[in-house]
């Protein structure tokens, strides 16, 4: 436990030191400018357009940062050889991977929390306090980020940042199109194509499943059963991907 927190806190500290949190300033700027622009040009329900825009900005910013940090998470320690003195301690490699991962999740949590505060301030000033379901959607976004980060960690356990970025981006993109794969499969004539599409759908992540963007924008409450479903999916899938990351890293010689 002490080993885990120590690793996680140092990972967090390093991200903060690398001025990752500064990216929030860019986010705040985009948010403010974007909402002002939306107020100028939209006819109809302005408040919803602005909320939708803000929501997407947070999703995209957080996902980009998750991928950016995730792909070099483990590789960096190997490349700078700081892993030598760390892994020669009585520290199972699984704990090392988990500690680094939790540090990254902590970083993302803080990042998202600050963005949500900025969001709340901007929204309250322009249209009043956002509906509660919006905050639930940010909670689910955190779960989505945990899964995305787990994938990035898996890739960073066996390849350099370039390859890992490529694979992570691929997973990110496919994961957002998962529903289309299903639709495509169901529409196909051939039995083989249908089965393959189904199999792919079940193996690949479905990031859209975490999204309750529509409800959040329209202020429609979400049922508890949906939330529980998403939590179970996120936790289960993340655990499997992290286990794979540990398995990959376990047997690896450190150069």
């Amino acid at each position, binding site marked *: 436990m*002490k080993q885990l927190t120590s690793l996680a806190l140092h990972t967090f500290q390093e991200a903060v030191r690398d001025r990752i949190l500064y990216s929030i300033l860019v986010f705040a700027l985009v948010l403010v400018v974007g909402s002002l622009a939306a107020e100028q040009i939209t006819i109809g329900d302005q408040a919803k357009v602005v909320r939708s825009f803000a929501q997407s900005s947070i999703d995209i910013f957080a996902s980009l940062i998750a991928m950016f940090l995730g792909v070099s998470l483990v590789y960096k320690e190997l490349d*700078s050889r*700081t892993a030598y003195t760390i*892994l*020669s*301690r*009585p520290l199972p490699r699984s704990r090392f991977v988990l500690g680094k991962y939790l540090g990254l999740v902590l970083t993302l949590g803080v990042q998202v929390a600050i963005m949500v505060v900025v969001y709340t301030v901007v929204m309250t000033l322009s249209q009043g306090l956002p509906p509660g379901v919006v905050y639930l959607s940010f909670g689910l976004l955190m779960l989505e980020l945990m899964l995305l980060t787990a994938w990035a960690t898996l890739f960073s356990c066996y390849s350099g940042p370039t390859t890992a970025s490529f694979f992570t981006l691929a997973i990110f993109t496919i994961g957002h199109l998962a529903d289309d794969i299903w639709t495509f499969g169901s529409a196909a004539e051939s039995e083989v194509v249908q089965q393959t599409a189904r199999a792919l759908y079940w193996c690949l992540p479905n990031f859209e499943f975490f999204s309750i963007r529509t409800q959040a924008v329209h202020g429609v409450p979400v049922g508890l059963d949906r939330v529980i479903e998403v939590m179970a999916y996120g936790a289960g899938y993340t655990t499997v991907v992290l286990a794979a990351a540990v398995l990959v890293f376990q047997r690896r010689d*450190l150069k």
Partner: protein
Amino acid sequence: MIPAVEFVGTGKVYRTGFFMRRIEALRDLTLRVEPGEIFGFIGPNGAGKTTTIKILAGLHESTSGEARIFGVDHRDPKARSRMGFLPERPYFYLHLTAREVLRFYGQLSLVPDDVIARRTGELLERVELSRFADVPLRKYSKGMLQRVGLCQALLHDPDLVVLDEPMSGLDPMGRALVSSLIREEQEAGRTVFFSSHILHDVETLCDRVAIIIGGQLRALGAVEALVAEHGNLEEAFLSEVDRSTPVDPKTLGVMA
């Protein structure tokens, strides 16, 4: 008595490149280091010293045979709870200060916080870095980093200290410091296993030495015996190198 370090028929084959070319870095190493010994590990560049040490440190897995630390298999992380390790060239989180980095390693070795604080003070004093304790490592010279490396290896009072070329990068005072640290460890009843190219230091410090060439153990014995036979350790070393079969440049292992 359980040996501090025990290799039984240990081998290591690296696979490199797209075609997974074999490089046999270590072949059939059988060796015991007894508790309380200072044991020297010498050999030419590329002989397999670092490979052997990395197996102990849990950084590489052996591909054949066994390796144990105080009787515990080297693959088990617990084997390293009684071991301290200094890599060939130590790398740290450079944004941390010496005090912070030692605290980090202490936590990873599950040392209580008050003990970490006390040991950090003692060790930094011992390696003459007290004045720089709160300076980020980014500003340290190579020799200063080597000294921090020694501190992290000794921080948790390990019963076995494994050092890969501990004298490299140090000035004459630094080398003398390492020598006396190694002696102090032995006086405290601990075991020291180290590799070095500085044969004079090995001769004066070690109880026993192993000479490894091309991944194979060529000589093993008390320093006194080797010196008695050859005059000094350097002569013993050179005559072993002369007698050894040439190294195959393709596999970097010994030619069959």
